[in-house]
């Protein structure tokens, strides 16, 4: 079987945990474009992504490779999402469960992105340990019933890998459904 490479778009609001996730799961040196924040955003966190994050994840003993492209979170950097979203296989949408003030806009973004890209999504609900709460939040953002939802603590690499597992399962499911359509 030939090697397969999949492109994953890691996106979501400012300070949701996108960079942490890519840095914690990447098996190659993650590329990041973090800079110091200014103004009100510096009250939320000290650094922010201005262009992109990039990481990779290969499945042990297999020829499956994930390329993780992370976007900045703020609306002023939306052009980067537009640049990075081409040929995406799965959207990993990261949301901070506790940053409730970001949820409404995040829902609008997620729905628009999925309408546009027509690919499956994995919703990673950061700073959340409860699958019921995570599912409820994901549904409120516009995730469909069948879409994968992962409560996680992205500061912890093991937790990031759980998101990657869901991404892999989602890819598998989407390949199987494609086969059925072809048949």
């Amino acid at each position: 079987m030939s090697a397969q490479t999949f492109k994953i778009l890691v996106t979501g609001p400012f300070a949701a945990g996108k960079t942490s996730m890519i840095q914690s799961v990447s098996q190659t040196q993650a590329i990041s474009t973090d800079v110091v924040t200014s103004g009100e955003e510096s009250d939320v966190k000290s650094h922010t992504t201005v262009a992109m994050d990039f990481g990779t994840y290969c499945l042990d003993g297999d020829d499956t490779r994930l390329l993780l492209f992370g976007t900045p979170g703020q609306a002023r950097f939306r052009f980067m999402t537009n640049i990075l979203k081409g040929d995406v296989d799965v959207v990993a949408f990261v949301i901070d469960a506790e940053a409730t003030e970001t949820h409404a806009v995040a829902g609008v973004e997620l729905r628009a992105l999925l309408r546009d890209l027509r690919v499956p999504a994995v919703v990673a609900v950061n700073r959340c340990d409860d699958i019921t709460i995570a599912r409820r939040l994901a549904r409120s953002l516009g995730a469909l019933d069948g879409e994968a939802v992962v409560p996680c603590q992205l500061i912890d690499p093991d937790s990031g890998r759980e998101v990657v597992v869901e991404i892999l399962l989602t890819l598998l499911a989407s390949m199987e459904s494609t086969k059925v359509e072809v048949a």
Partner: protein
Amino acid sequence: MPPPAPSAIPSLPIPSTVSAVTPPNPTDILDELVDTIDGVRSAILASIDGFGLARSSSMSDEASHPAMLAAAIGLARQLVLMGGGEQLRQLVVDHDGGLMLVWPIGNERVLAVLAVTAVEQRRVRAFVQARVGSLAGTPA
């Protein structure tokens, strides 16, 4: 004999001397740049995280402009590492309509100068170099 030229513009080091006079504001500096150097069309100063700080009156106000400069500098810094370097000196966007010269100003700001292709880059650099403290906005 003239003093040695400042080491290219390269991320424009901020002079450590203290100025007693009120530093001119960046908007005035950018307008002066456009007015005094032939071929310079406009200029914009942004924070390294993508907020607009000042622009010449010839530059339109678009929220995405400072964000694009921040993203370009962010990526260019990674390209410097790819190239085996450590510090980004300048980013030049050479296009069919002219030139865009982009310099990090201190550690927290970025300046873009939009000009015609034939602009005398040395003059632009010297102008900016002489005012880098005010553009950096860091209290001397």
